[in-house]
């Protein structure tokens, strides 16, 4: 729905004589795109010519432009909100991490300090094998599940805090009257 509005007839099928390799005067070396096994149209297909816009020696960078959209979001102001969010998330993560460190880090220490643990058995299998080979995994999954649930809840709480109980319809240029 964009483009020219007037009716145009571009690229009308030309008379046969011109249809063959109609090389333009000077094709500006296009970067060949690797497209293997491209389905070609009908049998007497004339060769396509690749066209690109002329080079204009433009630097690829874009960072200068990034600002406007973001400034709009008022980072200074937003940061005040976000800090509470970040702090809550970090606290949650560090908490789970501490538990993980205590359990995983505690195991070798326990084995080192209590030699009895090294050879004790549970259901006929040595305890260290049970703990490291089997029990560790459900614990890890459980910790991950716990974290995902609570991290999502923190985000929900945060969104509620922003939107209020009756999340107002989004209308940026709000007239506060």
């Amino acid at each position, binding site marked *: *729905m*964009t*483009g*020219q*509005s*007037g009716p145009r007839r*571009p*690229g*009308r099928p*030309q008379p046969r004589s*011109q*249809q063959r390799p*109609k090389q*333009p005067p000077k094709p500006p070396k296009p*970067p060949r*795109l690797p*497209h293997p096994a*491209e389905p070609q*149209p*009908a049998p007497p297909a*004339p060769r*396509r*010519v*690749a*066209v*690109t*816009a002329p*080079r*204009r020696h*433009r*630097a*690829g960078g*874009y*960072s200068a*432009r*990034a600002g*406007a*959209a973001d*400034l*709009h979001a*008022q980072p200074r102001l937003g940061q*005040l*909100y976000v800090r*509470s969010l970040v702090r*809550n998330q970090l*606290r949650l993560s560090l*908490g789970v991490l501490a*538990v993980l460190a205590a*359990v995983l880090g505690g195991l070798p220490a326990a084995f080192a300090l*209590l030699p*009895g*643990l090294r050879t*004790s*058995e549970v259901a006929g299998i040595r*305890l260290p094998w049970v703990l490291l080979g089997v029990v560790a995994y459900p614990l890890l999954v459980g910790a991950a599940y*716990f974290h995902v649930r*609570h991290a999502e809840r923190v985000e929900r*709480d945060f969104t509620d805090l922003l939107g209020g109980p009756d999340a107002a319809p989004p209308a940026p240029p*709000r007239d*506060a009257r």
Partner: protein
Amino acid sequence: MTSVITVVSVTLVIAGAAAALFWLVRGRRGFGTPVERAAFAALHEASLAAPLLRDGLNPDSARKAARHLRALLAAPALAVVGDGELLAWDGVGRHHTAQAVAHTRDAIDAGRPWLVPGDTIDCGDLECPVRTAVVVPLVVDGLVVGALTVYARQVSAGLVRAAGEVAHWVIAQLELAELDRSRTRMMEAELRALRAQISPHFVYNSLTAIASFVRTDPAQARELLLEFAELTRYSLRKHGEFSTLAEELRSVDRYLRLERARFGARLQVDLLIAPEVLPVAVPFLCLQPLVENAVRHGLGPKAAPGLITIRAEDAGAECRISVEDDGVGMDPEEVRLQLAGEAKGDSLGLGNVDERLRAVFGDEYGLVVETAPGAGTRISVRVPKYRNGVHAS
């Protein structure tokens, strides 16, 4: 014996873990102390005023912003003065408005905060809280564009400080507004041009096609009308220069549905998508002009059924997109002119997309159009998955 130790130690570890998690869950609640909440409130007021000031200083924005600024300062009255005229007065004591500009004169001349003593303001009414004032000039880019006057029964040191801070904040907003304007002006110009180009032909054709269904298939007509509405909404959305490929494809889908209503079985579409490139950020409305070009130039003039193939493939740190048709093809010379921006007439689509891609990602990333009369057309784009500053919104 050891198994007792085992059981005890394992129980202890698990209990410790549970206790730690309980503490976490309990402690997590709530977002701030009363002091913080007061800060939230202040922040909130400021945030309400911010977008208003983004329009620059004019009576309308000043009037709306003044209420929030006054709430921020908890002052009985506040005036915003522009270039020699009162822009807004908020609060009590409106009988003082006539002198509001005069109150600011000293401060504006000095270019620094000024205290207005009680004897210049006094209106003789003992109940009137507008007795003294602190005036802070608003200096943007070295030019005094106005002043902020805060009235109070007795101006305290705290209020002077607060007024200064608020004025600084207002100045920052005004500066941002200036920056915003000059920055966005250029890049939005291109996009605006594209958005405004909802081709009358497309509108006409779509509505005609919809109308033809109203009798025969009202459900279909309704469906199409909704697609049309959605398509228009997406194309005219206000924010964001970038969108995700998934969203662009959704919009293309709507567009194609409408075109199919018109072309029927003459228009066939193959879509080949690598799902891992769907979250890639692409310039807003960069795909649809390509598809439209395929429909219009590829199939429009052709009687036989036409096939359009849209591909999006994963290529390491890039994504490759191509739109191909087996239509009548285009004249390479004509395409070259279009891409170089030298085409006559109002052909905006391809050149605009090419221009924006190159501006965003660099010269390597322009459109590649492979075509010849009678040979169909393929237009290819490469998009890096990450580029600093490019984020879909």
